[in-house]
Each structure stands twice: as C-alpha cells, then as structure tokens.
C-alpha cells in the first residue's frame, strides 16, 4: 500500500476520493475534510508551505500510520494558495478491512498533519486586517495522544 499524497492548488472532491478508496476487500472507509470557516468576518485564507519539504513530511506521517494500522489505502490531500470560506483545505481518507483501523489511521494523520507538516495559514478579514494564524496548544496535546 503506497499512500497517495498530494499538495496542490486545485480543489478536490471528497466523494471521488472516498470512492477511490473502496478497493476490493475494503470493509471500511473513513474520511476527514477540513474547510475554511467564515467566522469573525474572515474573507480569505492563504496557505503557505515549504515546497521542498511538504510532500515528504506528509508521506512520513502517512507511512507512520500505515505501519501502525492495517490499511488498504490512504489518501492525503492538502491545498495551498488562497481560499475562501466554505473551500476545502485538506482531505484524509483511509481504507481498511475493519473500521477501527480506518478511523484511527485517519484521525492520527490529521492530528499529526496539524503539528508536523510545514503549512502556515494567513487570514484576511473583510475589514482589511490580516494576520497569521497562531498554532494551537491543543494540537500538540492531541498529537501526544498517539505516542
């Protein structure tokens, strides 16, 4: 099983990605889609990344998951560039014979992605302000759950 890792400007379709994971003998597909929330007057979000490192970082997280759980397929897609409220940012999909493996692997990948993949979010607001999103302490705590 080779994880399918994509870092792209283009939009993606979670339905298409989930269907692709419905491989022979897969009994369970778990997915996560992260979206831009339009709260607090947010007008746009720009995702910056470290191109030479990003795909390797995602691949490492995905391979770590593949070593911990029995998976038939694993897809990680992360958009970069400018997005607006309602746009999809990130997708993680995992397929397995059993539900526990698929759900835990998906959960693990999104938790680790939050702390171990070189992406940075800049928010632009309707009133013209803009600022870099601060890392959340809770993301570190959440990741440590998997240690």
């Amino acid at each position, binding site marked *: 099983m080779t994880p399918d890792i994509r870092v792209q400007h283009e939009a993606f379709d979670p339905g298409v990605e989930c269907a692709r994971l419905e491989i022979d003998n897969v009994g369970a597909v778990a997915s996560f889609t*992260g979206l831009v929330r339009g709260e607090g007057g947010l007008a746009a979000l720009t*995702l*910056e*990344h*470290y191109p*030479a*490192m990003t795909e*390797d970082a995602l691949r490492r997280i995905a391979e770590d998951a593949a070593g911990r759980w029995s998976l038939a397929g694993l897809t990680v897609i*992360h958009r970069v560039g400018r997005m607006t409220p309602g746009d999809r*940012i*990130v997708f993680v999909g995992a397929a397995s014979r059993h539900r526990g493996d698929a759900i835990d692997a998906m959960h693990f990948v*999104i938790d680790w*992605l*939050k*702390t*171990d*993949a*070189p*992406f*940075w*979010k*800049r928010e632009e607001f309707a009133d013209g302000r803009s600022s*870099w*999103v*601060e*890392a*959340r302490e809770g993301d570190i705590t959440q990741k440590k759950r998997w240690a």
Partner: protein
Amino acid sequence: MAIDLLYFAWIREAIGRDGETVDLPDGVKTVAMLIDWLAERGGGYTEAFVDRSRLRVAVDQEFAGLDASLAGVREIALFPPVTGG
C-alpha cells in the same frame, strides 16, 4: 561555508525576503548561533528572532531543534509553529 536560508510566514514578512544564501562565519556552529548572528543584523532580522519560543527550524528539510549542528548542512528553514490542516 555557504548555506541556503529559507524564511516562511511571519519570519519571511519580518525579514522582507523568502530566503538568501549566506557565508557562515567560522564560529557559527549551530542553528542557535546562526540565529544570533542573523539577529545582529538589526531591523527585520532582530524583529523576526526576538521570541525564539515561537521559532521552529528545519535542517535539510527535516524538523530540528535550535541546538542542531550546521556541519555539512546545505539548507536551513526558519519559520513559526505550523498551522496547516
């Protein structure tokens, strides 16, 4: 020794460029020393590195600590904690 530096997010904005190639002085052996040396330049550099608890590093495209050695290193990236996903 020449080394490529890359800056991301507000580090990049404070410094005003996304990277540069520098010749390291002999005494600069670790990432922390590199940052001290850069911060001495003043202006945006000083501002970018004023709070090192909010600074993260990758050495040759691997996350590393501020104590990482620069021996044989080709690329150092300096950035805030990541916020993707």
